[in-house]
């Protein structure tokens, strides 16, 4: 039951916060650009259809920076953050496990492995189909998830300990696969590093299209299963007795969450901890009802990654830090905190 007041909160606070974050983040970066110029540039390009007069007095390089580099990057950060948060909510709900997220259960690694294999094929065989990378990433993600899930299953449940262990094992193995693939593809260490630490650098408008369709489609599917996700929290037998086709629902949701993860990873490498901590943070305010939790997490995830990326590109300016490192710095302490809380406190 979606409380009217919670819905109102969502619209009054979260959506505007997202818009404000996008605007502010576009104004910040390694190169100092006066905020007013930022606004003028964005308005000129969107509203005033490139009327050159509007940009008088602003150096060309600056226009490029804002429009071709920062804005697409900020938007991409929002999309990736959303995707990872949605996947995190879904995995946590389905597996009834507060420590599940695409990173810990090996789905991100699977996606990255798939993506790097696609790159290798492109390199060695010259194969280059459209959307090849996100689709290969998707296959990798689903395979990894399938493997981890079955490895961790004990009877009908997936206990926290075995899930984490299986996730770690599969992730480690896949990281090695990724490194090996990059070496075979003749890449230097930087290429490997990108996949393992994640980054939003050197991305432009075209990359958005690798994420948008999957996020929209996947997000809608997940939201339409929100009631089932709520009921699944009662346990699989109880859900079964309430008329939910448990196995079918699980398959659909796991695959959809993997798809959403895969598209994000194929564009930005493995960014960890977003899918883990955002659902928890949001749940504290929104409660466990997925009809609020899902959209709220999507927005908060976007805001979170936008700001993590701002830190990534300003904290060591003119140099950049891979954004996965920033999210790890924030996320790891939170993860430790979660592990230390007694299990019965964090049961759903």
């Amino acid at each position: 039951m979606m409380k009217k007041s919670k819905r109102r909160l969502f619209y009054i606070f979260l959506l505007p916060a997202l818009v404000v974050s996008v605007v502010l983040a576009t104004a910040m970066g390694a190169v100092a650009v006066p905020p007013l110029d930022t606004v003028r540039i964005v308005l000129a390009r969107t509203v005033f259809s490139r009327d050159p007069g509007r940009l008088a007095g602003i150096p060309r390089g600056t226009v490029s920076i804002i429009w071709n580099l920062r804005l697409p990057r900020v938007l991409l950060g929002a999309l990736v953050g959303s995707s990872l948060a949605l996947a995190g909510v879904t995995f946590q709900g389905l597996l009834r496990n507060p420590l599940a997220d695409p990173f810990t259960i090996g789905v991100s690694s699977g996606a990255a492995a798939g993506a790097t294999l696609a790159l290798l094929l492109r390199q060695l065989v010259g194969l280059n189909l459209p959307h090849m990378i996100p689709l290969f990433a998707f296959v990798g993600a689903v395979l990894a998830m399938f493997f981890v899930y079955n490895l961790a299953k004990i009877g009908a449940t997936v206990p926290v300990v075995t899930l984490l262990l299986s996730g770690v094992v599969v992730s480690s193995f896949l990281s090695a696969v990724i490194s090996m693939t990059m070496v075979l593809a003749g890449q230097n260490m930087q290429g490997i590093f990108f996949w393992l630490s994640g980054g939003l650098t050197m991305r432009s408008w075209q990359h958005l299209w690798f994420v948008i369709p999957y996020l929209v489609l996947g997000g809608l599917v997940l939201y339409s299963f929100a009631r089932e996700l709520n009921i699944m929290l009662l346990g699989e037998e109880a859900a079964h007795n309430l008329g939910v086709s448990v196995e079918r629902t699980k398959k659909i949701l796991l695959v959809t969450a993997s798809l959403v993860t895969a598209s994000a990873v194929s564009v930005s490498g493995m960014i960890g901890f977003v899918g883990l901590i955002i659902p928890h943070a949001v749940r504290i305010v929104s409660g466990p009802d997925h009809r609020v939790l899902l959209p709220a997490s999507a927005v908060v995830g976007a805001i979170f990654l936008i700001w993590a990326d701002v830190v990534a590109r300003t904290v060591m300016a003119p140099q950049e830090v891979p954004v996965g490192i920033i999210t790890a710095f924030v996320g790891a302490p939170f993860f430790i905190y979660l592990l230390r809380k007694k299990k019965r406190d964090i049961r759903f």
Partner: protein
Amino acid sequence: MKKSVVILVLASLLLVLAAGCAGVSKSDAPPQEVTGPYPMIVVDDDGRTVVIDTEPMRFVSLAPNLTEMLFALGLGDRVVGVSDFCNYPLQALEIEKIGNAFTPNVEKMIALAPDVVVSPRGSVLQEAVALLEQNGINVLVYDPKTIDEIEDVITRIAAMANVDVNGKNLVSGLQMQRKEFAARVAAAGQVSRPSAFILLDLDYLFTVGDGEYLSELIEAAGAVNAASGQGVGYLMLSEEVLFELDPDIIICTFSMSGQVLAKPAWKELSAVKNGRVFDVEDDLVSRPGPRVILGLEELYRAIHQ
């Protein structure tokens, strides 16, 4: 057991040990007549002092630039082991590989029974060095970072290998080439030197800052390193900094120029608009060795095209 007896036994043991150590440190061989340059005391780039007893006839090289130096000094026949990356001159490809520069295979090195191992800094771990020295193998670190240092290292290696004449000839040849090159650069008559951005990778914006071999080369070839002042060493820059710098030329150390020119976000850069994006052969510009002039030529070509 009585305490006093224990102390007595321990004390005598200590005495014996001390005497033994003192005894070993002294050389037992009678003093030899010194004829020729050996035994030679050599100090390497890590500051380590090594004694070379006889003329080294078997070398192992752990870096491509050092391999090139050995061959250029006419010591090619003496090289018995090289790293995986050593690919010049062609004869080097025939020589036994002992692993890559990060993790060389110590066992293989020992099996080859070299007299001297030449290595760049940080390549062979302390433990490995000790192991090699125990097997009578000398490890010498040579890590030239500037063109002057290349000449210095060549001279020192030549002396160590007793081929001083070759060393002198090689160095004077290099110096002459440098002079000619510098004159050519000056004569190109450019009033203001163009700025060149060295691009090392496309997933991250990797470039080279101050204090590196590559940055010295680019300056010697007649350009200004666009990333100068942004930091020391290898840098991972924020993409927007590239736009702020807006270099005249972009030089790629791998064949990336096609991808760079095709990047939609970079269309506005001056270098891209003017088509001044060039690939250079990484081997030539990243090895501080005898082919330094060729490296300079590569860069010169890219700058003055």
